[in-house]
Every structure is written in C-alpha cells, then in structure tokens.
C-alpha cells in the first residue's frame, strides 16, 4: 500500500467543494523527548482538499506533530494515517512492524514539507532545488523536470530567479522556492512548519499570498502558524494546541472569534 505510484495521487483536486474523505487522520498520538512529554494523545482529522491551521503557543507540540506525520520523528504511541495508509508501520500477522528506512522514504513521497528556515540545498540553484526530488526520487527525466520546475517557479513569482543560488535570494524568495520545491512532487498533503516565522515582516505577505493561492486550488494543507489573519481567511478548520493536546478545534469563524476554552481566549488576546 505504501507502494502506490505517485501518479495515482491527484495533484490538485478541483477546488469545487471538499469531500468528506479524510486525508490525514491522527488518533491518540503521543511523543516524548526524554522526560518531556511533547504530545499527549492528539486526535485530529483533515478532509481531502481542506486547509487546517494549527495554532498554539511555542512548545505546545505543533511542529513535533507535523514532523511525526512525515516521519522526521517517530510517534511513541497512536496512529497516523494518510489517505488511509498507516504511517511508519506495516501491519503483518496482527502486529505492527516499523518500516525500514527505504520503505519510510517511499512513504514520505506522499507528503511534502515547507520548513521554517527554508532548508534549501545551498549548493544548488533555485531551479535545481525544485528539480531535485522529481529527478532523484521520482525518476522524472531531467528535461521534463526542468520544464515543470520553471513553471512552478513562475507560479510562485520567481521565474526570473531560477538560476540564483539560495544565498543570492531574500528570505521570502527562498521560502517561495521551498514551496515550489514542495509542489514539484505533487504531494497528497502539504505540511507547513511556521513558514513565515523566520521572515522579515514585509516579506511575510508574499509567502502567505502564494499559500492562499494553493489553498484555493484545493490542496490538502496542514499549516502550523502564528498568522491568525491567515488562519481566519484561508483555513477550513483551526486546531488550537496547548501542552501537547488539541484544546479546541472548529471553523475559524468560531474558534477565532468565540473561543470556548480559556486557554484559547488567553492566547488570542495576546496575539491579536
């Protein structure tokens, strides 16, 4: 099941209405680093084509949750499913067997991640960064990958910057290259880990605008962010996390304007 070919993943489901088919399902996920319990039983579900924003104070486990979804961390307990596939394990003879590194790598192809610190490959140009995964993970021919990469860079407004190295780009431009790179593998789920937190204030908007465009095109997105306005305008669902649990969730109109939980209220008062 982890071997589902990439082409089967519809790149962009039509924006017309989201289905109820859950794309990401998380149940009872726990994770500790040493003595510190970072996730204490997370349950959440994101339907295909929906945008979910995860809000919450620093240290509430938002990033760790995201990193468990693409197996940069292994959850200690609980189950994560992407489009029905159990993440990180193979079930055989009534037991779960952890995937080996090769199988895990294969499974990671269904997701793509945009990092807080961009994490572009510094020894490759913008277009080479975007081509890297299609060519070296998915075996797309170089010429085709280049053409597609140039289209993607055009789409994030960087058509004229394709031969620049990351060090020659501003933070906002680097992050847009990183988004193009994430799109290049046509992921079923796009994960954003605080994509604007490392940016100068005036560069934040260009990145958020690109993300809002993607949301309109019907990509399933999980966005860890501190941008409340973005969550309000773009998200279908907002999850508020604190102390390793989801404290409150629902449509942004309700969670952000009439929060029920005192913790949510206190947080929103501070950031708004």
């Amino acid at each position, binding site marked *: 099941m982890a071997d589902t070919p990439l082409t089967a993943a519809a790149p962009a489901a039509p924006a017309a209405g989201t289905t109820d088919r859950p794309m990401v399902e998380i149940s009872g996920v726990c994770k500790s680093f040493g003595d510190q319990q970072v996730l204490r039983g997370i349950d959440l579900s994101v339907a295909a084509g929906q945008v979910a924003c995860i809000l919450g104070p620093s240290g509430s486990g938002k990033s760790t949750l995201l990193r468990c979804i*693409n197996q*940069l961390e292994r959850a200690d307990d609980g189950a994560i499913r992407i489009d029905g596939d159990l993440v990180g394990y193979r079930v055989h003879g009534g037991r779960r067997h952890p995937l080996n*590194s*090769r199988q895990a*790598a*294969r*499974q*990671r*192809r269904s*997701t*793509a*991640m945009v*990092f807080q*610190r*961009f*994490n*572009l*490959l*510094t*020894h*490759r*140009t913008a277009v080479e960064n975007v081509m*890297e*995964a299609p060519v*070296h*993970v*998915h075996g797309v021919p170089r010429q085709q990958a280049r053409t597609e990469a140039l289209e993607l860079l055009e789409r994030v407004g960087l058509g004229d910057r394709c031969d620049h*190295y*990351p*060090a*020659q780009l501003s933070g906002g431009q680097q992050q847009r290259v*990183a988004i193009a*790179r994430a799109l290049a*593998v046509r992921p079923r789920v796009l994960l954003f880990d605080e994509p604007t937190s490392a940016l100068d204030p005036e560069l934040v908007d260009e990145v958020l605008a690109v993300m809002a465009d993607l949301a309109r095109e019907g990509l399933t997105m999980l966005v860890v962010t501190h941008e409340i306005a973005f969550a309000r305008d773009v998200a279908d669902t907002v999850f508020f996390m604190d102390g390793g649990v989801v404290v409150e969730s629902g449509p942004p109109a309700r969670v952000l304007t009439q929060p029920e939980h005192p913790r949510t209220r206190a947080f929103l008062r501070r950031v708004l």
Partner: protein
Amino acid sequence: MTSTRSRAGSAAPADDRPGLEPLAPRVPWREFLYLGVVGVFVAMLVNFVVTNDRLNLPVFAEYLFDPLVLDGLQTTLVLTVAGMTGGTLLGLVLTAMRLSSSPTLRSVAFTAIYVSRTIPLLVQLLFWFFLASVLPEISFGIPFGPEFVTLETNQVINQLGAAIIALSLFEAGYMAEIMRSGVLAVDRGQVEAATAMGMTPWKVFRRVVLPQAARISIPPTMNQVISILKYSSVVILIGLADLMFAVQAIYSRNFQQIPLLLVATFWYGLATIVLTLVQSQLEKRLSTGLPKAARVRMQKLEETPVG
C-alpha cells in the same frame, strides 16, 4: 589656514571650515622599518650563500637530477599517494561507522580511531615490518575452520607493503575525524529537507551531505597530504629508498650534507607548491552556491600577501 591651503595646491577647492582641512599624505614609516630589518637579514643570508665556499653549491646542482634522487622522489610520491588513498578509504568507512546508529559499530570505530591516532607512525612502521616474527604465516579461510590459502608473511608484507600499511593506518584515524567534522558541519535542516522529499539515507548522503562535506574537508585533508609527504621519510628506518634515503646515501659517501639536504628541500618544496595549487583549484571548483561575498573574500585572501 593659509599654509594648509597652499599645501593642498591645485587639489579640489579647500574647505575653510575647521575639521575639513585636506588630508596630509601618509608616510608608512613603520613599513620602512620592517623592510629595513628584513632587508638586512636577507643581505646576510645572500652574503653567507655567495661568499661561503664550504656551502658548495655546485654539488647541489650536480645531484639535483641524480637518478638516485629521482628514484627516491618517486618512492616518496608513491608512498604519499598510496598512504593517503588507503587512509582516506579506511577513514571513510570509520566515519560512516562512527556516525551510524549501531552502538556496536560506533564503539568499533571509536576504538579504531583511538588506536590509529595513539600509536606513533614510527612504531606502526616497525610493527608491520617485523610482523613476521610473531605471525610467520598469513592464511585466509574460515575462522577456527579450514584454511584455503596460506602465505608467508614476509612475502606479503615487504618494505613497501609495510610502509603503505603503516601510513594508511596512521592516516585513517585523522582522515576519519576530518571527514566526520565535514559531515557534522552540513546543515541539519538540509538533511531533513532531503529526507522529507523521500530520499533514502544513502541518497541524502550522496546528493546533499557529501558535496558539502567534501568542500569543508579539503583544507584539512590537504594539510594531511602535505604532512604525509614529509612524514613518509621515516621509511628510511626500514631501508626503503625514498627521497631522504637517497640523499643520505649520497652524503654518507661524499660528506656534502648541507648541499644534499638542500636537494631534498627543493623537491619537497616543489611537491608542496604543486599540492597547494591543486588545493586552491579544488576549493574553487567546489565553492558552488557559496555567497558571492564569501567567494570574493576568498579570492581577495588568495591575492593579498599575508602581512
């Protein structure tokens, strides 16, 4: 005021406001002093070389291209290349083990690196050379089981073999640590990004870590090459005819020690210059993606004389 203005001469119209008087020319008195002192020493050296008959410079010229010397130089170069290649390959294996997730492999690598860096080169050299005294025969087969091939140790490990083994093992520990530092210096975020793309660990290593670690490892690696070029002269103790051996053999006959040591110095120096050029070419080639400022800075550093 008037004197200031006249000194400024035909330069731009002088400003009368205090604090904006024209700049007085700067005389580098200190530089003159340094030059003077250095000049005296250089003059003394030249005087010593030119007027000293005992230095016997014609002997230097006579033996510079002596076949014995050239053969020795060849042996030195072979030892350097073989020792570095062996050391680098072994070091690469040790680095991979040292960074692996297996505690067993990590401890083995840690111990091997410790041993490699602990035993002096000279001791290793003699150890391998005299190995036959404790292990007369080397056999290949199943441990504690049948043996397929049995060879005499002295046939397998001759002088050159002992020297190459010793240099490789001596170098392996240093190279392992150099490459480990290179790997660790690669940004974790890039490794995570490549992993998140769905690359297998091996591909992450080849596509992301190795190109960047190689760039970082070049200067210390070239340091090792240059030092092994010279350290290899310990092989004269097991009678291997390298450059130093040739030079010593000649001056033990004609007693012209200094001219012949200058011959050795000349060849070691030439090899080092060539290696330095190779290093800067390698660094230039691998500097892709470095910020332009950093590249310009590096070029400036190369162009400006130290001082």
